[in-house]
């Protein structure tokens, strides 16, 4: 396809240096797609003008789904006709982003036949992203994807593609089976995922422990974060070995413990009642310390990026759910949350913002949860209390 290679003097600069280059990737894709060639051309133009050249959205999709495809059109199609349409397809990733080489080749072959040959592995929410195709290619891509066992991910005011950390597949710290929970929840909510019917998006992220490798705390309306309830498992011989190998246990472990609940005098003592399960000591001495055996997860609600009313972190809703009960508890909880959000949420209001607006106490009433002290860092410090009217039986 080198008949009309665009001049890319600015982008060429980004092929230099040690870090792998996205420009090189786009150039590689020009071997199989003229769309990649025009993308290079338009991107070079953006680099010269310091502005994007994509038009605002546009509703495109596959039959029967309301999401999974993001419409994208060039605003300079005369100059770059091959990317006049350049729609994105989100494909639901397998839990934990594991693949076989054959499954990746299948995806590549489909995308070579029907699109630009450019992808994101992966998008911010976790989906496989196919970058750039024409409207008439959407149904054929979809048909081939589903025949290969893949399905689209979420977009718009819908359940978004859930994601999870690698969990029990490769992490000794996982307090529940993140990949199974993520997969089960994704399968349970196929309709909500493909057919947007919410006030705004709803994300679920499953992290196996408080290290939170999937940023559940910051990026999920429902954050499932693994914790244990009993005592840290401790192997004193292994602790002694770390000390012998030169780890300064007092300075690097005990003094960094947020609640100072550890002491060291040649022997390590943990006051587990005061441990907040932060993971620090376990991270530093993985051979000596491990999460307890009574495992499960905390459920937190409401985090989001700034749009619309400001960024939020998730806050504790259910402090501990045993691992066997996670799926059922989450399903029940979600149905109550969605019912309330559906009724009271405003257009483009995330669950976290709704809670801010109506108040956590009212939200708890609505979803039928009792308040517990783990939900707050401290009780309120202002006296403006909305006392409720005495009920009959008080």
């Amino acid at each position, binding site marked *: 396809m080198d008949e009309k290679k665009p001049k890319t003097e600015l982008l060429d600069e980004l092929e230099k240096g040690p870090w792998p280059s996205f420009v090189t990737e786009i150039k590689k894709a020009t071997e199989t797609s003229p769309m990649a060639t025009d993308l290079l051309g338009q991107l070079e133009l953006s680099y010269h003008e310091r502005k994007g050249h994509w038009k605002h959205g546009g509703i495109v999709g596959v039959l029967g789904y309301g999401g999974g495809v993001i419409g994208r059109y060039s605003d300079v199609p005369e100059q770059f006709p091959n990317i006049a349409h350049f729609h994105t397809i989100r494909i639901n990733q397998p839990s934990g*982003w594991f693949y076989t080489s054959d499954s990746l080749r299948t995806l590549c072959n489909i995308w070579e036949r029907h699109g630009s040959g450019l992808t994101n592995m992966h998008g911010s929410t976790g989906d496989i992203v196919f970058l750039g195709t024409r409207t008439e290619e959407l149904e054929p891509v979809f048909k081939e994807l589903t025949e290969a066992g893949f399905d689209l991910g979420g977009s718009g005011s819908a359940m978004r593609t859930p994601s999870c950390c690698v969990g029990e597949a490769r992490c000794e710290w996982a307090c529940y089976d993140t990949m199974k929970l993520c997969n089960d929840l994704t399968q349970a909510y196929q309709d909500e995922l493909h057919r947007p019917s919410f006030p705004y998006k709803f994300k679920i992220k499953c992290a196996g422990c408080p290290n939170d490798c999937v940023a559940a705390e910051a990026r999920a309306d429902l954050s499932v974060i693994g914790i244990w309830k009993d005592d840290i498992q401790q192997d004193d011989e292994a602790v002694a070995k770390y000390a012998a190998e030169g780890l300064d246990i007092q300075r690097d472990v005990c003094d960094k413990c947020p609640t100072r609940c550890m002491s060291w005098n040649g022997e390590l003592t943990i006051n587990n009642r005061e441990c907040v399960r932060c993971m620090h000591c376990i991270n530093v001495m993985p051979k000596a310390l491990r999460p307890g055996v009574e495992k499960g997860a905390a459920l937190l609600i409401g985090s989001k990026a700034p749009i619309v009313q400001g960024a939020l972190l998730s806050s504790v809703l259910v402090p501990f759910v045993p691992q066997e009960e996670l799926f059922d508890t989450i399903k029940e909880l979600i149905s109550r949350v969605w019912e309330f959000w559906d009724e009271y949420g405003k257009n483009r209001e995330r669950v976290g913002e709704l809670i801010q607006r109506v108040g956590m106490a009212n939200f708890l009433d609505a979803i039928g949860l009792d308040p517990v002290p783990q939900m707050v860092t401290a009780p309120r410090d202002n006296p403006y209390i909305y006392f409720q009217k005495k009920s009959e039986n008080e």
Partner: protein
Amino acid sequence: MATTITPKRITDIGPPHYEKFLPPVIRRNYGAWKYHEVLEPGVLCHVSETGEKLYSVRAASPRLLSIQTIRLFADLADKYCGGYLRFTSRNNVEFLLEKLDEVAPLKADLAAAGFPIGGTRATISNIVHTQGWVHCHSSATDASGIVKSVMDSLSEYFVEEKLPAKLRIAVACCLNMCGAVHCSDIAILGVHRRPPKIRHDMLAKVCEVPTLISSCPTGAIRSAVVEGRQSVEVIEEQCMFCGNCYTVCPAMPMNDPENDGISIWVGGKVSNARSEPKFTKLAIPFLPNNPPRWPEVVEAVKNIVENYAKNARRFERMGEWIERIGWPRFFELTGIEFTRYHIDDFKNAGLTFARSTHLRF
């Protein structure tokens, strides 16, 4: 007349089940991992209760991958890993090996193909980022180009473990923050600085005015009749350039090459280790948008990273270091100017005011 039988259209099957993508060593030891070691930056060894070992080799990726490169990864997985590989939540690619002696030749192949190995533990891992000029309509800047420029200058921190703790960088090209940069050690955020330029000619045709008005978090948008047409006006003093209005209405474009640029934020984290998760805080309100190499941004990030590397204690994340030494010292050490923009004036602003005489000079 022959009737064509159309096969039933497959829908709502969800993602393929992960189990079939797991290498046998993982299937055998699922949920039975005992501990892990980092053999060298980018090479992990997980040991199971039964003593079996799994070696993971983590390589950098630009996230934007061509099918040609994915096929290359697939070939390497065939050659060394029985065909199994995965990607991480920060878009690195990971090869999953059963034999330690295959690690070195795999590393050599990856190096030859231009993919550095590292990103584990106290390193700078891959930058998570957004679409930018490659694919998004609302970007104030590009994302991939900034990531490439910053990582070119910091790649030593990816391949070598020479930081006090892990350092996570994220880039988002507008306040929508698809990359959720609001909890990273360093966040690079594209910003607009002028109100939307209202397209009165098309507004009534393409947008619902009430939805548009209610989309503005500060109530800056009012209904107005302009040149005889139903449209809106923006009270400029009330606009903080968030771009919400543009998200719901294409007639409110924010793009402005002369005024768009980049802000730098520091000290956020999501992990619960030691201190609680925290938001990033403003370090530099504005840097110019200077493609293709964004030298001002690269310089600013490098300066912050180097000061952190030099001054933080072992295991201290960026935000924890700054909290210990105090913000005045952070600004002094980095030479970054403290301005009126650093003082919050949005909702709940008072939460970041100093409300004690615990002062540091």
